[in-house]
């Protein structure tokens, strides 16, 4: 695959109080790549997601997306550049229906403002109809079309995770960050998630995922980054990572054997 760099982290670090949560982490995500971040709990994976999406501002280092520095931009601007995400602890809009959740994802790519909405201008009504049909298409893509009018809070966890993916895709990202998408899923659901991740990549969207399910990670990831105590421990294709002595000692040695 001829690839160019989509996302590049350079010596990114942040500390909370005295705790250095992320220390000088550097890695890259190429266009069309599926990359996984693994590491024990507290290794700084979610913190790294929050840094990339602008929820946190790094103390030092640089984060570049499509060759432009994005660190310190507010989250909604970073979303606009083309990075979207899901959450480890599901963050759906519970009082809204499934399709409405996805429709919020279209917010960025549509423009009806307060006045156009309040006056129901014809073009804003057309836009609204387009938002709905595009959102239904994304629901179809993740397999939730039958639940469109249910309240998001009433979905089982597996469906909620799929809905978060549909909502994130509706923002038309170039890079999708998935934070433990398989947590709480059964085996069939995990299998479908795997197919979904490949389908997302087939649409030209790069994926960066944090995942504890090692068999899923090893199967889908082109490359894996291992974090431990906020530091980058190893980086490489899955088969190298599985044999990496430091990784086995720090992480796989414990969890991998339990699988």
């Amino acid at each position: 695959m001829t690839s160019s760099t989509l996302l590049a982290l350079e010596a990114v670090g942040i500390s909370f109080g005295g705790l250095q949560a992320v220390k000088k982490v550097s890695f890259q995500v190429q266009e069309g790549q599926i990359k996984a971040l693994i590491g024990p709990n507290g290794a700084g994976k979610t913190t790294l997601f929050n840094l990339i999406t602008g929820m946190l501002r790094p103390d030092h280092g640089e984060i570049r997306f499509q060759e432009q520095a994005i660190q310190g931009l507010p989250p909604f601007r970073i979303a606009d550049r083309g990075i979207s995400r899901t959450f480890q602890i599901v963050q759906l809009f519970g009082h809204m229906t499934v399709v409405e959740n996805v429709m919020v994802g279209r917010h960025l790519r549509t423009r009806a403002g307060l006045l156009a909405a309040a006056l129901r201008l014809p073009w804003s009504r057309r836009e609204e109809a387009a938002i709905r049909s595009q959102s239904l298409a994304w629901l179809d893509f993740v397999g939730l079309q039958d639940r469109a009018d249910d309240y998001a809070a009433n979905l089982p966890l597996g469906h909620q995770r799929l809905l978060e993916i549909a909502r994130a895709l509706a923002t038309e990202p170039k890079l999708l960050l998935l934070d433990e998408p398989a947590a709480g899923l059964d085996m069939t659901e995990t299998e479908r998630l795997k197919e979904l991740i490949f389908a997302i990549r087939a649409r030209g969207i790069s994926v960066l995922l944090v995942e504890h399910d090692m068999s899923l990670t090893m199967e889908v990831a082109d490359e894996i980054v291992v974090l431990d105590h906020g530091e980058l421990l190893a980086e490489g294709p899955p088969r190298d990572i599985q044999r990496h002595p430091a990784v086995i000692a720090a992480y796989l040695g414990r969890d991998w054997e339990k699988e």
Partner: protein
Amino acid sequence: MARYQRWLQAGVFYLLVALSGSLLPGTYYVTLLNLIGLHIIIVLGLNLLMGYAGQISLGHAAFFGLGAYTSGILTATYKVDPLLALLAGLLLSTLVAVIVGIPALKLKGYYLAMATLGFGIIVAIAFQQMDWLTGGPSGFMGIPPFRFLGWRFQTPAAKFFLVWALVGLILFLSLNIVDSRIGRALRAIHDSETAALAMGVDAQRLKLLIFVVSALYASLAGSLLAHTVNFIAPSSFGFMFSIKLVTMVVVGGMASIWGSLLGAAVLTVLPELLAVFHDLEVVIFGLILMVVMIFLPRGLVRGLLDLWELRRRKKQGR
């Protein structure tokens, strides 16, 4: 489908209002209906802010007052055209809402409540103390009736028409806002600001926007108040009225447009009905609020719908 049902509901509602406006005898009832209309306008705005965007304000009486005093002073003291005065009130309220909203809306929950509360109190004190301009605690008199395109809204019936035409306009705008890209983003902010931000919603800007909208509604209602009662006093725009507005939103039902109509109507009429109890009025008022909140926590409209649904299911069960 749901949309046509909405317009049907609005039509039926308006028919009822028009009927009661024309059938009820005497000016007392018309004046009361006008007051309900004004409260509905403010509560619709406050519900956009509280029920939809999830941001509380304990200072909305201040915007009501800003509209009322701007209209009153400009038309009575400076003989400005009422429409221009109303627009000046809207402009002033927008400015104040932006200046207050930018820092205050960075706060959440109790802290936002405290900040808006402080703002409301400051404005109420200003109305009292600037007596060279506002007439001070004894009030401001001699406000002329509203004029528009040669029409003078002087009789109670004309005022009724003016107020309820504007209630209709505000209701139309609010129903549209709720059911739009902006309304959806507001509800998203309410449920999870983090997720809304990650989806590209500029939460801070939208909160400010809806804060300004709700201030504009209140200011409009204030201007109309000045021209319908022709006399305004600072006591109408104090802390207690802000609380009452919040109560109207909650009793009617958060994030419910129809709830706002009912909440405003019930809490405007109730004190009048309870006046027969004299000193006990406030106690009974409080008791009714407590009972409503304990048994219908989602507000009158949804609560009553739930009860009805429950009864229907029971019947079917038999």
